Structures are given as structure tokens and as C-alpha cells.
């Protein structure tokens, strides 16, 4: 393939220079016209070869090379005017120019026609071209231009295929009408192509679409206004229009190529941007680089064997007409998936290099996503454990209350009844019963304490306010309650506040040597704030098991605890517990 390209690379300039020199030599063109005209042909061949090399998967390069050669080859007739071979090749080649051009524009940028309508249009174009070629090759003589030929050349040979010279002007006119209709249809398809493409695709297609429109309009004007009589060799103004229309195609493609070169700079920018601190979200950086603001990024979590979006929710990226999924990394263990505008596939190289450049940042983001997912799960399970513990405590307390305690109380009533029946006598049995009653009361007290410690009944029945007041009443150090919320809070929040205050008051009684404690509990928005301050010796260790335990309980509910305990300055505990 590269040998073929090399051959074409040598043949192109040689052909253009040859026919250019020939045209000047035969006084067909001025040197300036020759340079401009064949320079445009050469530009098409050169750009075609570059596109062919850089985007081998696209046929656009080959088509452009073909277009350039088809434009220059027919003029060999001028250089080798006496040669029937040159006349034959020239007549055939000139007719190929128009359909090749149509194919080039309609199939851009892949070089392949996607729609049946476009394929039909191009096939019709080539069929008409074959019709023209047959007409010329069989019945036209270059020496009799008025019979329908367009090049006066009295010293030229007839082509090999020449059968007999006929006046075919009428048939030509018919073909001209047909080709004009095709050119109009081509314009319609071009406009439609622009309308249905996405913003991104339009950027790619627009330059060549412009060139296509220019040439098609020129072509229609040429046929409908001048008919077959127009001759760019003799009509000077028309010559320049033809040159311009030849040049506009390679120029628009070169513009696309330059724009493609910008892709490398864009990837370099991306690398720099991703290294910036604080880090930019990788999605945003990729969206900017790829020029697709609708770009979505899904990260692969190997543990879950699923893609997740930025919020950590599972997604299942699938390609559709509007969205294409490009998976980055190996297929069995992908890194991420880009869900993007299908037009980006036309810039596969940019997509791949941007994906590669973002690899490290994506890996980072994925680790963070995994960590976040785990953290959320741990937080939830911690809250669940505390909640389950609270429920278990409530159940135990309830069981003690409904079971053992009720039986002991009934037993107490039975003892009372027995004592009443027995009266004062009975061999000291009354003393024994009185003693039994005393034991029973002690057992009831201990049971009540036990139940109270497991889960305070007052908290279940009456809520935080009464429960905290009960705690305050029992505290050996006087407690001044400044405020407690009147309304009931969610169970876990109430339990957390209660046990926090209970543990803190126990600590005050044990270590603080305080004379008073100030307690403030207030609901602030969707959280409840607890503030407890003593006037003791301070110096409490926040990591002591009691304080650590209550901090754990509060943090399990996503709350915060701050303990300030400078030696000699009392201890102050502030906590905030969500209760939404």
C-alpha cells in the first residue's frame, strides 16, 4: 500500500507539471493559469495522500487522490494530441470527476456511504458519467467540436473507440438535464446531512460541505446557463471558477487535518489539567478535551463487577443511535466507560489518546469511588449495629418488666395475703414472711436497676425530657438543666443523647470533683445539640473507654463529639447528633 502511495506521490507532480507545461507550450494557458490550475490538482492529490496515510481506515484519502488525477489526466490530450490512447484515456477520465466528487462529499468523513439514498444517487451519477463517456468515445471527434465535444482540437487524433462522427448534441442536452437533477438532489442530501448530524459531526463535515455546495452550484450554473458550449479553456472567467472549485476541496480537507493536529495539543492540555491541584473532575476535563459537553463517565468497580456513575449508583452503559459507549482499558477488567456523542468515533485517535492520558486520574477516581462506596456501607452498618443494639436492649428491658418483675410483684401480694391470714401468731412464721418480703423488695430493686441500666423505661415511655430529668435527679453532683426539647425525637437519637449524658454524668461523679453541672439539649434544624459542662478539675482523657464509647455511639449516627478538658478548667462536652 505504501509502495502504491509512493508511486502516486511521484506520478502526481509529474502529471501536473507535464500537462501544465504542455498547456503553456500549446498556448492553451498562460503560465500563471497553468500554475494555478494544475497546482489545484496537485493540492488535491497531495492532501489525498496525506489523509490516506494518516487515516487509513477512511476512504476519503483515496477518493481525493482519484479526484485529483481525474481532473489532471484528461489534459494529457493536449500534450499527446496526436495519440489516440491519450484521447481515449482523457475522454473516459474527465467524466469520472463529477461522480467521484459527489461520492467524496457525501461519504465524508468515512469514505463510505451509509444511506441507501446516497448510494443510489452516486450509482446514478456514475451511470450518467458512463453514458457521457460512451457518447464521446463512440461518436465524437475532437476535430468537430460543434458536434457536441467541448474541446476544439483540429490536430487531435480520434480516440481508439471512435466509430463514426454523429451530431449528438440532442442526447447530450438530455443527459445535461439528468445530471442537473442529480446535482440538485446532491445539494438536498448535503443540507440534510448537515441537519441530521450532531454538533460535533457538523464541525467535521462543514468545511467539505461548503466545498461541495460551491462546486455543485457552479456545476448547475455551468450546465443550465452555458450548456455544453462553455469551454474553460476559452472562457477566462470560468477558468478561475473551475480552479477555485478544484482548490476548495483539498483546502477544506486540509483545514480538517489541521484541526486534527489540534487534538494532540488538546490531549497535552488535558494532561496538564489533570495534574492540577485541587484536582478537576476527570469527567469535566475529558468533556472539554473531547468537545462533548454531554459526555458521561462511568467507573468500573471490580468488586461489584459493575459500572457506577459519579454519585456511586450502578449504571449499565449501552450504545444507542444517540450515544456511543467507549470502554477504556482491557475488556475483562475495564477501567471506565465513556458515554459520548457517536461523532467522536470519527476522532478515534483523540478519543484513545485522551483516554490514555486520563488513565492515572481515572484510576485515582475509581479508587476514591470504591472507598466512598465502602465508607457509605460501613457508616450504614455501624448505624444498623447501634440501632439493633438499642432494640435488643429495649426488648430485654420489656422482657424483664413483663416477666420476672410481674411474677415477683405477684409474689409480694401473695406474701401480704399470707401475713394477713396468719395474723401475729404462728411460731414466728410472720417474722419469716416479713423477712421474705424484705428479700423480695431488695430483689425487685436490683431488678429495676438492672432493667434501668439496660434501657431506661422512662426514655421509652416519656422521651428525652423526663428521662434527662430523672438522670439529673439521680446525679450526686447537682445538675442544672437549661433546656431540653419537648417533642419526641427518633429512637436512635434519643438513646444516643440519653447514654451520652448518662455516661458523662457518671464520669463527672467519678473523676471531676465538680460542684455543679450545666446541661443544655436543643434541637437545631435537623440535628440535636448537646452541651454539658462541669466546674471540676478537668483533664479528662477523651480516649478513656467511657468517653470513647459514647463518641463511637454518636459517630455511628453521623454525629460529632468534641471534648474540651483543660486541667483546672472543668470539662465541656459538645455533641451534635442528626435526627432527621
Amino acid at each position, binding site marked *: 500500500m505504501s509502495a502504491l502511495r509512493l508511486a502516486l506521490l511521484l506520478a502526481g507532480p509529474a502529471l501536473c507539471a507535464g500537462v501544465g507545461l504542455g498547456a503553456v507550450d500549446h498556448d492553451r494557458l498562460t503560465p500563471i493559469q497553468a500554475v494555478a490550475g494544475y497546482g489545484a490538482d496537485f493540492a488535491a492529490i497531495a492532501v489525498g495522500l496525506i489523509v490516506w496515510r494518516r487515516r487509513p481506515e477512511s476512504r476519503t484519502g483515496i477518493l481525493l487522490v482519484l479526484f485529483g488525477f481525474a481532473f489532471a489526466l484528461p489534459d494529457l490530450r493536449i500534450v499527446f494530441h496526436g495519440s489516440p490512447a491519450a484521447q481515449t484515456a482523457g475522454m473516459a477520465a474527465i467524466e469520472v470527476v463529477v461522480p467521484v466528487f459527489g461520492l467524496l462529499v457525501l461519504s465524508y468523513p468515512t469514505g463510505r456511504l451509509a444511506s441507501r439514498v446516497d448510494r443510489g444517487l452516486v450509482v446514478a451519477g456514475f451511470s450518467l458519467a458512463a453514458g457521457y463517456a460512451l457518447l464521446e468515445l463512440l461518436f465524437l471527434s475532437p476535430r468537430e467540436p460543434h458536434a457536441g465535444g467541448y474541446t476544439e482540437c483540429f490536430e487531435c487524433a480520434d480516440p481508439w473507440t471512435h466509430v463514426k462522427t454523429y451530431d449528438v448534441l440532442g442526447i447530450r442536452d438530455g443527459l445535461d438535464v439528468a445530471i442537473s437533477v442529480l446535482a440538485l438532489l446532491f445539494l438536498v442530501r448535503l443540507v440534510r446531512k448537515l441537519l441530521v448530524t450532531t454538533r460535533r459531526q457538523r464541525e467535521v463535515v462543514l468545511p467539505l460541505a461548503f466545498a461541495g455546495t460551491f462546486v455543485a452550484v457552479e456545476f448547475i450554473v455551468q450546465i443550465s446557463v452555458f450548456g455544453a458550449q462553455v469551454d474553460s479553456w476559452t472562457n477566462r472567467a470560468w477558468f478561475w471558477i473551475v480552479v477555485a472549485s478544484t482548490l476548495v476541496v483539498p483546502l477544506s480537507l486540509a483545514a480538517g487535518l489541521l484541526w486534527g493536529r489540534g487534538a494532540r495539543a488538546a490531549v497535552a492540555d488535558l494532561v496538564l489539567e489533570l495534574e492540577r491541584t485541587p484536582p478537576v473532575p476527570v469527567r469535566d476535563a475529558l468533556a472539554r478535551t473531547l468537545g462533548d459537553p454531554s459526555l458521561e463517565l462511568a467507573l468500573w468497580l471490580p468488586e461489584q463487577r459493575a459500572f457506577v456513575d459519579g454519585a456511586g449508583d450502578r449504571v449499565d452503559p449501552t450504545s444507542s443511535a444517540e450515544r456511543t459507549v467507549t470502554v477504556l482499558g482491557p475488556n475483562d477488567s475495564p477501567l471506565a466507560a465513556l458515554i459520548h456523542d457517536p461523532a467522536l468515533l470519527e476522532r478515534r485517535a483523540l478519543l484513545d489518546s485522551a483516554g490514555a492520558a486520563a488513565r492515572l486520574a481515572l484510576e485515582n477516581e475509581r479508587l476514591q469511588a470504591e472507598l466512598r462506596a465502602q465508607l457509605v456501607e460501613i457508616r450504614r452498618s455501624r448505624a444498623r449495629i447501634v440501632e439493633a443494639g438499642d432494640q435488643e436492649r429495649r426488648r430485654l428491658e420489656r422482657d424483664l418488666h*413483663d416477666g420476672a418483675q410481674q411474677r415477683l410483684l405477684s409474689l409480694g401480694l*401473695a406474701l401480704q395475703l399470707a401475713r394477713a391470714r396468719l395474723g401475729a401468731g404462728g411460731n414466728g412464721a410472720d417474722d419469716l414472711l416479713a423477712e421474705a418480703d424484705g428479700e423480695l423488695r431488695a430483689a425487685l430493686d436490683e431488678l429495676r436497676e438492672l432493667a434501668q441500666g439496660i434501657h431506661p423505661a*422512662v426514655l421509652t*415511655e416519656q422521651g428525652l425530657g*423526663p*428521662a434527662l430529668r430523672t438522670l439529673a435527679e439521680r446525679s450526686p453532683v447537682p445538675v442544672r438543666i437549661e433546656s431540653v426539647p419537648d417533642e419526641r425525637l427518633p429512637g436512635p437519637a434519643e438513646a444516643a443523647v440519653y447514654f451520652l449524658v448518662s455516661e458523662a454524668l457518671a464520669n463527672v461523679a467519678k473523676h471531676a470533683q465538680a460542684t455543679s453541672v450545666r446541661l443544655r439539649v436543643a434541637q437545631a434544624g435537623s440535628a440535636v445539640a448537646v452541651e454539658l459542662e462541669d466546674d471540676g478539675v478537668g483533664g479528662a482523657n477523651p480516649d478513656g473507654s467511657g468517653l470513647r464509647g459514647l463518641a463511637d455511639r454518636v459517630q455511628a449516627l453521623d454525629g460529632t463529639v468534641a471534648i474540651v478538658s483543660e486541667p483546672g478548667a472543668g470539662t465541656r462536652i459538645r455533641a451534635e447528633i442528626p435526627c432527621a
Partner: protein
Amino acid sequence: MATTALVVDDHPSFRRFACRLLEAGGFDVVGAVADGASVLPAVRKARPDVVLLDVLLPDESGLEVAEQLAAEPNGPVVVLTSSRSAADFGDALARSSARGFIGKRDLTASALSALVGEP
């Protein structure tokens, strides 16, 4: 004439012993029920002078039942009782229209008489 009483408690053994204790103490126990919903019909039927009412009933709170009884014309005297201590109910007992509260461990016929006898 003996003071008539209705005992409301969901624990069968306690209900049984409480009835016998009050009978032994000179009360005429005219009924015993196990839940809040049965209280009003029983009171309307037997017209007791006093209702010994457990605070923690399976269907509704004894405190609510006490308010229903207070709304009855010529309703009975209501005395609340519970295995829990008065402190466990905060100020709910004080706000209640019941005559008083006796902890279950302190329940005797004389303690009840003392409360009912109060003007």
C-alpha cells in the same frame, strides 16, 4: 357498705392476687379486666367506686383510659398503678386527672383506702 372496686391489669397472676388482696382488705371487687378497651363497658355495667388501673396496658395507655373515665358522669375514683416507679412517667402522673398513683410493690388495701378516702 363496702367500697366497690374494678381491677385493670394485663398480668393474670397479679390481677388475681390484687383482687384477693383488696377483698381481704374489705373492698368489694366487682370486676377485673385485662385491657383498656374493656374498662369503660365494665365500669358502666358494674359502677365501681374505685378503679385500680395499670398504666402500661397492651392496647392503650392507662393514662388515656383515666381521662375517658374522668369524662364519665358520676365516674369512679381512678388510682393508677404500675410496676415502674412514678419517676419513670415524668410529670405525666401529675397532669393526669387520676386521684393518685401506687407502685405495685407498695400496693395494699389500706394504701388504696387512704387514697380513695381523701375528699
